């Protein structure tokens, strides 16, 4: 892995402090800055694990037709799929094309939604990737339009469709009785279950011995929740119309009985058997023959709004139009927190050598840090705010999280590496449009003719590795970017990833001087001297790459 910095969202933990970077839970709690949101109301970072997601619109990913949300909800749609002419190849999942009976001239197809009226019926669906063809499985169409409607007749009369309809009827009363769950997120953190989930899990606990042990909700309910009458509503048994047992006794293919054996005995090529992947989305027992695969509906995609899980303010609200990439509301963390990037001067030097020697596409490689050595590294901070900020860094001590208050007793366990960072706060200038953009006449030209800071900055590398005084501290300030130098001392016994947690605190001028809220953990104590200044702190994990050992024989073993 190449060096990088990720940001912490504390939603997965009960403390504001992140897990140690070597723990598996660490990667789940840290995110790239561009994947994070920021709630101004709560003054907190939010991530895709904790935001509440709402569908704000549906569209077909193939014909891009926008389907009104109301009709998706109301219609007994086929699993919310495109109701026009869009189908997926059951064999390779490519989009199918409608073709007339005249065989297509070698790759001469149209863009699916624009149907070429020319051509002879019957029409069929054709895959221009794997050459699957619906005529081979007995599906043809009289007209090249309204295919979904034409196919619907077959689909509706399929036994599993009828069964599904009956199931829905059976559960309808309970769905209606439950408090509205519509529109509220894929997951909310509400501790209580709705009655349907409760009924389903109690049924499961009843029918499958031992399962209740793994369902904390079911357990707690049986102990204390008896009085909740909503949950007391038991759903009566459902009698399936299609008996799985009847099929397995041998009438149908896929039941594992005689017909399957017979089919397998007469196989000529392995392609005659549909793969598990191809049959995975089908219900119950399905034929193992690839010749029985049917064209698949294309599920709709959705545009999503996102809300803060705590205060419910909207963080993301896309524009209505399906293919628009603009947003009415977009509160992303990148507009609030400094963007931090890490680089290793010794690796950059090696890379520059490779590129100069003609390997223009050379990429940074890992495993360039040797155990027992000391390396400088650079962290550059880019300020997105229109005001200057002061940043202070703090390396989280590498101790097990179980004993956070006993650093002294942990002395025996020597950390595998030591990080040195500037201890003083350092400034980053304000963001100004002129620095970022743009455009034609032009910052790049200015830069080239001007002071040539780029070269300057390159020159730091070799100098730093000798003169220690220049390694740690502020190395460069340019526009709204400040670059600082740090140093890592790797012990001889160190192995594995060079990762450490770093707390970043930045002080900025607040527009609205409001009273401090002591309840928010990420906000530090009030800055009493200057009431209009505020400090926001967040954790990051800095990954400097992988440590390799000097002995070349064991390098081979490791890699």
């Amino acid at each position, binding site marked *: 892995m190449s060096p990088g910095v990720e940001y912490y969202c504390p939603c997965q933990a009960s403390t504001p402090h992140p897990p140690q970077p070597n723990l598996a839970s660490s990667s789940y709690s840290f995110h790239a800055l561009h994947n994070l949101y920021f709630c101004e109301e709560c003054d907190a970072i939010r991530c895709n694990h904790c935001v509440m997601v709402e569908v704000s619109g549906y569209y077909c990913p193939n014909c891009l037709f926008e389907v009104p949300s109301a009709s998706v909800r109301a219609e007994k749609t086929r699993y919310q799929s495109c109701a026009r002419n869009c189908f997926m190849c059951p064999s390779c999942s490519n*989009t199918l094309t409608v073709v007339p009976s005249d065989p297509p001239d070698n790759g001469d197809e*149209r863009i699916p939604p624009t149907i070429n009226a020319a051509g002879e019926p019957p029409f069929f669906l054709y895959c*221009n990737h794997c050459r699957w063809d619906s005529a081979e499985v007995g599906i043809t169409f009289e007209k090249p339009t309204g295919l979904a409607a034409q196919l619907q007749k077959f689909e509706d009369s399929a036994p599993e469709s009828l069964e599904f309809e009956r199931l829905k009827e059976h559960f309808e009363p309970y769905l209606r009785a439950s408090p509205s769950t519509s529109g509220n997120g894929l997951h909310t953190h509400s501790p209580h279950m709705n009655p349907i989930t409760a009924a389903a899990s109690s049924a499961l606990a009843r029918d499958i011995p031992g399962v209740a042990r793994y369902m904390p909700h079911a357990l707690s309910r049986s102990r204390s929740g008896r009085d909740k009458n909503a949950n007391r509503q038991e759903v009566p048994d459902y009698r399936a119309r299609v008996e799985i047992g009847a099929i397995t006794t041998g009438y149908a293919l896929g039941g594992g009985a005689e017909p399957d054996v017979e089919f397998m005995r007469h196989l000529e090529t392995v392609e005659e058997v549909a793969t598990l992947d191809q049959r995975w989305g089908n219900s119950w027992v399905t034929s193992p023959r690839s010749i029985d695969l049917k064209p698949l509906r294309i599920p709709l995609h959705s545009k999503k709004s996102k809300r803060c899980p705590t205060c419910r303010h909207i963080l993301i609200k896309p524009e209505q139009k399906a293919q628009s*990439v603009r947003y009415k509301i977009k509160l992303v963390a990148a507009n609030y927190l400094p963007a931090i990037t890490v680089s290793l001067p010794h690796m950059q030097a090696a890379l520059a050598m490779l*590129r100069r020697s003609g390997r223009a*596409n050379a990429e940074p490689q890992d495993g360039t840090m040797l155990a027992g050595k000391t390396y400088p590294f650079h962290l550059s901070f880019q300020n997105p705010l229109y005001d200057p900020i002061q940043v202070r860094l703090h390396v989280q001590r590498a101790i097990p999280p179980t004993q956070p208050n006993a650093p002294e007793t942990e002395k025996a366990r020597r950390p595998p590496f030591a990080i040195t960072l500037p201890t003083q706060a350092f400034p980053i200038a304000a963001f100004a449009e002129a620095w970022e953009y743009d455009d034609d006449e032009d910052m790049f030209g200015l830069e080239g003719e001007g002071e040539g800071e*780029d070269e300057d900055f390159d020159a730091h590398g070799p100098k730093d590795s000798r003169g220690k005084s220049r390694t740690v501290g502020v190395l460069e300030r340019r526009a709204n970017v400040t670059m600082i130098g740090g140093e890592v001392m790797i012990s001889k016994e160190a192995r594995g990833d060079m990762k450490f947690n770093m707390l970043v605190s930045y002080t900025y001028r607040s527009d609205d001087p409001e009273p401090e809220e002591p309840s928010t953990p990420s906000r530090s104590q009030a800055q009493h001297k200057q009431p209009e200044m505020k400090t926001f702190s967040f954790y990051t994990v800095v990954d400097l790459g992988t440590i390799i050992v000097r002995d070349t024989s064991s390098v081979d073993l490791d890699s």
Partner: protein
Amino acid sequence: MDHPIYYPKSEYIETDTGNKVSRRATIAGPQNIILGGKTIIANGAIIRGDLRRTGPGHAVVISLGRYCLVGEGCIMRPPYKTYRGNFNYYPMKVGDHVHIGANTVVEAAQIGSHVEIGKNCVIGKFTIIKDCAKIADNTVIPPNTVIPALSSFAGSPGRFVEDMPESTQEMVEAMTKSYYSRFQPDPGSAATQQR
């Protein structure tokens, strides 16, 4: 990072609008090709502006917007089909801030803006790629595929993998601009360089 990507100065021609075209790229039918400015055509790329619709007059075959990159060894070829008995080529339109990785073959009809296409991909004929989409390395997109905005595709055939983040537009724009500003003639390769 901010580190420059050097090329030998003699290897690229820079136009008035800042396009940088490799002398080792093949630009067929240049009169039918439009480059929006600050677009880079890398070594060994082949752009077939010569494959134009039959008939009189001037025709734009391939147009690329600003801050695009056609990677090393890429082939950009307009899509073609036989319609009502006539064989014809159709134009290819590419938006701004589009990066195409090395050795990818593109026969798309339309590529939006802020699109990233990986290395070693095949983008089939008449494919439509909407804004802020991303195609992973080694993906094969069959002909006529539609790739919605803000979606990422991978595999063979290419399938939808996941939604792109909401900040994709800003990220890709920053990436393409940074790439262009870092793409510099090697100061060591020519005596005429400043300093």
